[in-house]
């Protein structure tokens, strides 16, 4: 392929860019150095590790290995989405996992057949596509959960007021479901609004750097945006409905005692 190799010593020099900032922080007491160092070290080691794992998986080139790593990635995304929430109920991890895995796998499967990836498990396509979907679904699911569960507590009186007048649990929660879904989708919708004008998306940039024709890279980017948005919407909607079922009993009762605030 036609791109410039990056050797380790080039990376080492590039890391000087970080060191400039760390030094600035020390000199001007900006209190940024500590977090910057930790984040830099984490980023480098995580990426190097992932590089090794991916090389290994690419070499194995076996469907089970690809599915295993896909499940692992989705599970990490599901758990991270919950870790960003302040209020949780007992089966929240399960709900988040279920929402993210089913939405991301469904969308991946559709895209897979559309691109006619051969063999279907080709890690060169499957893993990066899934990774991008998961990153966005994770944000959507955590925003959705945060918004829905916080609103349940803030609007308890309003919800119970409606229930007391004969509303079903869905009628009473409908507005919250709507608002939470919209909150979850705001980053994705905003990203689409300015894409190509304010920002050049990372994947497209990457493909162009790797030598792809810009028009090809654009088509990939459009496809991946469709995948990302639809997976984010599906996962967010699924997780809100699961949280709704967990928090409202079949007797149309709001069960706030199930909600525990994390410290």
């Amino acid at each position, binding site marked *: 392929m036609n791109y410039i190799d990056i050797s380790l010593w080039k990376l080492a020099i590039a890391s000087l860019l970080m060191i400039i900032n760390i030094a600035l922080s020390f000199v001007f007491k900006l209190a940024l150095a500590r977090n910057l160092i930790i984040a830099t070290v984490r980023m480098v080691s995580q990426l190097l590790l992932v590089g090794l794992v991916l090389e290994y998986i690419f070499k194995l080139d076996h469907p089970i290995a690809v599915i295993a790593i896909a499940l692992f990635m989705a599970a990490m995304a599901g758990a991270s989405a919950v870790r960003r929430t302040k209020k949780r109920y007992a089966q929240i991890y399960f709900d988040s996992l279920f929402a993210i895995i089913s939405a991301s796998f469904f969308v991946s499967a559709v895209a897979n057949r559309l691109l006619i990836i051969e063999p279907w498990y080709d890690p060169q396509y499957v893993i990066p596509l899934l990774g991008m979907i998961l990153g966005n679904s994770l944000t959507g699911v955590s925003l959705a959960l945060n918004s829905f569960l916080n609103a349940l507590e803030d609007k308890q*009186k*309003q919800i*119970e*007021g*409606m*229930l*007391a*007048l*004969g*509303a*079903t649990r869905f*009628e009473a929660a409908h*507005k919250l479901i709507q608002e939470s879904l919209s909150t979850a989708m705001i980053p994705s919708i905003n990203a689409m609004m300015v894409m190509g004008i304010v920002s050049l998306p990372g994947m497209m940039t990457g493909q162009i750097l790797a030598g792809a024709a810009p028009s090809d890279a654009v088509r990939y980017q459009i496809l991946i945006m469709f995948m990302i948005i639809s997976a984010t919407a599906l996962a967010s909607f699924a997780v809100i409905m699961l949280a709704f079922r967990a928090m409202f*009993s079949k*007797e*149309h*009762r*709001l069960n706030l005692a199930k909600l525990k605030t994390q410290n």
Partner: protein
Amino acid sequence: MDKIFEVKNIACQIEDRMLWQDISFSLKAGDILALKGPSGSGKTLMLRTLAGLEPIQSGAVLYKSKAQNDYEMPVYRSEIIYLQQRPSFAAKTVAESLKNPFKFKVHEDKKYDAKLVAKYLLALGRDLDFLSKEIANLSGGEEQIVALVRALILEPQIILLDEATASLDEESSQNLEQLILAYLNQKRAAIWISHDQKQSERISNKELSL
């Protein structure tokens, strides 16, 4: 006369504290039960339980001889309406707040009756301009008026009132009592939490102390 509402041996425990137990009573058409007890004795919790907003921990609650648990809860709650101590509204104006519940499936065969609303508002000393007021600008007493009218136009058989006149002046408070008595009209029943001893004596024919 027939009992329309019956409570058998219900109890309520929170963590390891028994709030109330062995509570039994029944209501016939026209009954108004005054529910009494010091603050923290669980009066609100009792009304919430009777409205099905809290699970019945033990014992049974029967409406028209059928257990609460055997009802579709929205149907049960359309007949037995609980008025929160401090009402809440999702809509912006008074009129919208009154109309909103008619969108619920359980009320789909009922119609918003503007004449009835006007009649009730008049009885509570409010004219039709009141309908266009914004909820955010209402006083606590006015909120209670909206909440009561909103409940009455849904024609419940039993009304559970949690300090329904707490924020009202003496005159408005008596107007509200008169309206409720006229509404019950010896055909329906109510349970009323009131800290006003005189009010309790005026309106109730039964009482229960927690």
